[in-house]
């Protein structure tokens, strides 16, 4: 009898183990490989490193369970590095740069039992590969909130009679004329417009994601052209430094610049990647599939704002941001609100309908209707932004593809 019980218990244990294996893996068996374009010197990559470390801490992973590989160019070296990470025993591999995508995809096709996750990419939803995933965050909401802070500051300047021109003007330093940047500066502009209706904006592109000299020069040019406030979407300290030198308020990106720019920094939006890393590791442990397109939001903790610098920001900024955040959460407010009259217009006409290029193809043909229910549905049909409309009120001084 005892033997029988022992046998049954053993059998049950075996079955239990098998079932557990089918369901997922033990936490100790997860191994995450992270491929980075640069290292800590770039604010963009640093943001990912911080995210990985935060997630590692939160999940209680050991040092051996996370491998970070730095300085991997957007070339075949990315593919080789991905395969090396598989050889090291990684079962989730992540890459952080847009140009890594085709190489990650190639590795994913070759190693079907490992998950490949890629930030900012656009191909996962059309490739239909079970182990290839894209991720991004609804950073346009964060930029809108930062835009509110900008608009309120402009109102303050206007009330004090210190505007440089007749109407409040913002300057924006962008990297490239991509959807990601267009979506970013437009949401920032709309945030400002929501509290300061007569605001206009001028955008200068640098043609590089990281070029301190060019970004500084672009910010200075915008300041000389009469900008009352500056914001940027590029990764160096160029624009914030130019603002601090000229005493022009700056809404930053990727993290706080208050230490170098105490007199002009207002607030900064950034994507926190820790929730995504926690999510993919969690799914692996549970044995559940990772979303093909994952979009982090304010609720997931992926879209965050730094502390507002109350020394520079207008009074009531914190409260106004919190109020808008609550409206986003309740679903009563949308960044790309096409229903409110005069809020978003293109060549004077309202934006009732828009075909966006969601599915990447060689000819970049628009394929998906994205305006419905009174707003433009950004980052819903895929995680990477596709808002690339040039709306009224924003003037592009140049273009850089």
């Amino acid at each position, binding site marked *: 009898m005892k033997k029988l019980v022992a046998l049954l218990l053993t059998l049950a244990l075996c079955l239990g183990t098998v079932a557990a294996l089918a369901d997922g893996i033990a936490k100790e068996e997860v191994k995450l490989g992270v491929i980075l374009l640069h*290292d*800590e*010197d770039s604010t963009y990559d640093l943001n990912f490193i911080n995210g990985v470390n935060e997630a590692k801490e939160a999940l209680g992973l050991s*040092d051996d369970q996370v*491998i*970070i*590989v*730095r*300085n991997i*160019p*957007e*070339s*075949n*070296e990315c593919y*080789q590095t991905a*395969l*090396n990470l*598989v*050889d*090291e*025993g990684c079962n989730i591999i992540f890459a952080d740069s*847009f*140009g890594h*995508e*085709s*190489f990650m995809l*190639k590795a994913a096709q070759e*190693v079907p039992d490992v998950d490949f996750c890629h930030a900012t990419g656009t191909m996962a939803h059309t490739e239909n590969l079970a182990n290839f995933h894209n991720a991004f965050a609804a950073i346009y909401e964060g930029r809108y909130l930062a835009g509110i802070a900008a608009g309120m500051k402009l109102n303050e300047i206007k009330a004090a009679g210190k505007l440089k021109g007749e109407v409040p003007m913002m300057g924006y330093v962008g990297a490239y004329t991509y959807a990601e940047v267009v979506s970013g500066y437009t949401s920032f502009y709309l945030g400002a417009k929501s509290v300061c209706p007569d605001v206009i904006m001028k955008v200068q592109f640098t043609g590089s994601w990281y070029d301190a000299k060019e970004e500084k020069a672009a910010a200075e040019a915008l300041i000389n052209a009469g900008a009352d406030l500056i914001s940027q979407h590029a990764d160096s300290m160029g624009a914030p430094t130019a603002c601090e030198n000229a005493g022009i308020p700056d809404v930053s990106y990727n993290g706080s610049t208050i230490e170098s720019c105490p007199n002009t920094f207002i607030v900064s939006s950034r994507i926190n990647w820790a929730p995504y890393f926690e999510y993919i590791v969690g799914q692996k442990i549970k044995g559940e599939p990772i979303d093909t397109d994952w979009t982090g939001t304010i609720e997931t903790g992926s879209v965050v704002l730094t502390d507002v610098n109350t020394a520079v920001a207008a009074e009531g900024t914190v409260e106004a941001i919190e109020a808008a955040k609550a409206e986003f959460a309740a679903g009563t407010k949308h960044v790309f609100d096409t229903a409110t009259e005069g809020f978003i217009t293109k060549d004077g006409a309202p934006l009732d309908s828009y075909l966006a290029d969601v599915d990447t193809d*060689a000819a*970049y043909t628009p394929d998906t209707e994205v305006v419905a229910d009174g707003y433009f549905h950004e980052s819903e049909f895929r995680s990477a932004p596709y808002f690339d409309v040039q709306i009224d009120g924003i003037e592009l001084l140049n273009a850089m*593809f």
Partner: protein
Amino acid sequence: MSHPSQNAEREPLIHLSKRSGIHPAKAWGIRLAALALGLITCGLIAFLLSEKLRSDPKLIEKFYTAFYRASFGRGKIASDPYRKTWDFLQYSALLLCIALALTPAFRMRFWNIGAEGQTLIGMLGASAVNFYLGGKIPEWLLLILMLFAAVLAGAVWGVIPALFKARWGTNETLFTLMMNYVAMFLTAYLIKKWQPMGSGTLAFANGKLPALINNYLLIILVSVALAAAMFVYLRYSKHGYEINVVGESERTAQYVGISVKKVIIRTMLLSGMLCGLTGFLFAGLNQNITRDSIGGRGFTAIIVAWLAKFNPLVMILMAALVLLLQKGAGQISQDLNVQKTAMPDVIVGVILFFIIGCEFFINYQVHFRGRGQKREEAVK
């Protein structure tokens, strides 16, 4: 004070004399000692740079096994457990091909620093053919045309500095160096032109190198065959002899009736063509192109060629050695998770410094004063 001791004081602490000859075994002993010293120095540097290593000294073992693991370790990809070894051999072979391409020019003392650009432009030529014709003609024909375009493009890129040197005596080092950047930006421009909204990578469905047993062997065999052919060409052909004479002395070459201009142009055509051939191999292997596709191998190959003293057969070993170091250094920095890392370059640089530096001790004998005295006494 006695006279001889005054004499000894005047003798410098260290003095050097040129060795008339050294036993090969001793020379290799010095080289191995230098390699060992280089590795120890790297260990010390890593110890300074890596907090992780300091807190867990046991990792030092991992540090030294990294060189083996990176190139020969068994991987976890079930279908291809020896991938790392094959990958190591394949990329050694590609590095070897570029070093071999440089060799005839270097033997001629024509300092071709432009292998990076000549290889990339070859790859661009192959990719252009693939872009316009891929899928429209049979695969075998496509590959032949890609090869042809690559060799032609490489030859053009190599011969332009040679023509200027032969015609106007321009400085080939600067000229070939500048041509690298022209090639890089031309590549970036054309990729943008062919794919205006992309991320700077052009990928192809066609134009894959045929597999020979596996996907790695073809390139490895091509490189070894090329090494053998280059050895024969330089040692036994009339061309090889002419290259050597021009390298030793242009005046002697003129005196014996060798047309220096012709040799310069012919040799750089060959050098560029071989770089172009390597570019074709890259194109057929990667099936994509970016401006960084060659990834600095055109410069690394210069070190390989020098380390081998321009001997094509020794070059096989040296290409493998340099890649072994590079891969090991990458593995170390990955294992130790060093921040802001220039560490792989530092490690490779330090070890190469020791290896190249030790040649000094092979060519010169070092005498220390104390020892010299003893020897003198012994003679007495």
